């Protein structure tokens, strides 16, 4: 099965080297060919399962809890300045 891998890696934001693309594309095609197996089944009247347990109405009270101190917030940041996470300039 052929897939448009360049569109997918753009959506998923993964830069692939040309040789990676050559390696991954047929593997993905093979897996997709395999999962097509599900099309054998008639699932018209079946409800989808999104959760493995049947819970509902799980809520918390609107009560304050401790936030992290700013040093801890920024401790793992690749780059920060003046209390902000720094990223390459956002242009739209």
């Amino acid at each position, binding site marked *: 099965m052929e897939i448009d891998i360049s569109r997918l890696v753009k*959506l998923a*934001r993964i830069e692939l080297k040309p040789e990676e693309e050559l390696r991954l594309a047929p593997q993905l095609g093979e897996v997709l060919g395999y999962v097509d197996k599900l099309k054998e089944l008639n699932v018209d009247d079946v409800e989808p399962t*999104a*959760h493995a347990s049947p*819970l*509902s*109405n*799980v*809520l*918390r*009270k*609107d*009560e*304050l*809890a*401790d*936030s*992290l101190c*700013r040093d801890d*917030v*920024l401790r793992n940041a690749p780059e920060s*300045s*003046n*209390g*902000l*996470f*720094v*990223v*390459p*300039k*956002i242009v*739209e």
Partner: protein
Amino acid sequence: MEYELVIGLETHVQLNTCTKMWCGCANEYGSDSNTNVCPVCLGLPGVLPVLNEAALRKTALTGFLLNCSVPGYAKWDRKNYFYPDNPKNYQLTQLDFPSTVDGYVNFESLGGIVKVRINRAHLEEDVGKSFHFADYSGIDFNRAGVPLLEIVTEPDINSAEMAYDYLNALKNILEYGAVSDCDMEKGQVRCDVNISVRPKSQSKLGEKVEIKNMNSFSGIRRAITYEFKRQVEVLEKGGTLVQETRRWDDDAGVTDSMRTKEDAHDYRYFPDPDLMPYRPSDEWLSAIREGVVELPLDRKMRMMSQHKIPQESADVFVREPLLGDYFEQAVKGVKNSRSVANWVINNLQAKLVESGTTIDGLTFSPAAIGELVELVESGKISGKIAQEVFNEMFKSGVSPLGIIESKGLSQVSDTVQLKAFCEEVIVANPASVDDFRDGKEAALNFLKGQVMKISRGKANPKMVDDLLREMLVD
């Protein structure tokens, strides 16, 4: 050819919960950057969301205020897109089973009452805030995870003015329900506009254009006006419109294309596996229903008929609900409700602005305003003295009667004393007396003023008028 506008609005409103949507960090504007954040709202590896009950409650309440129904089942979905201010790079929102659906808003516009249908009001999470510098951008995640209500209208709006009126009415309703502070400057209300244009004779909708980046209601009005003109011009020139997203440039007053349908996002929505669905119970819903308040438009109509106040006054009270509440307390048992309304709007409001205080900070009760009006009505004090009493009341919080007594400001209506004042003035101003006797009516006003002056404003003006005429004729 004549063209017609079809507009739908998507308004994002921050709910004024104490904490964020999925964690216990403060939902607070203006803190130092990245101080109201924790592993959950920062999207650190391994964290999970847990839904804030108050956010859900305020969503349902808003639904009721917008005449929506609250379905028996709601769930959360992931909307996938990368952006530096989006901590998980998916936003939790409600796609196909939102918390409230199918409502409407009635509001005044274009000289009448119009109705806009609400498709849904669903709950989602806000993202962080970006700041742009010369060669980099910086992100503050304090806002990330703040509960955000997205209120989506049907395409029932057909002019810039109507959109503007809808937004003001919506803001007013949300403030009434105390679900949001609706401060646009703090980014608590944001709105995207979907607009299309078609020849009046055509039933098929034109290509939908989304406009983003307006930061005020008037900006939205201008953007719609501009966009209508632009689209009509394209059509008139025989051009075609494309489905696209455009950005409003407020300084230049124009819109620019951001992206067309071809490079539109593919959000890959799917049900969030970390959050369980919500099935509101009848008890929960009826408790929320009890919190439903009178809507602004209903209130206006009621105030006009119940208190016989003019529309302009009712408008002020609807726009300023606290002032309206104050009026409704002050007017209790007072005959001249118009006068109470005037006092509250003209004097009290001005004084509040001047002194920078709020209604909560007042040291006298609303009944004191009613009392003041009654004192003027009964002739106990003049309007002018009333002003002085009011100023004193504002300062000290003492009741009007108390002030009048302690300062001896009661109006003098005693004929003997008034005659004595008049005598003194007649003697001191022979020229004016002559003028009046020669038929110059204006001279009497001067003499009256002199009497008021020496009585320090307390003389009953009507009686002074009568007495002077009587004495000068003799």
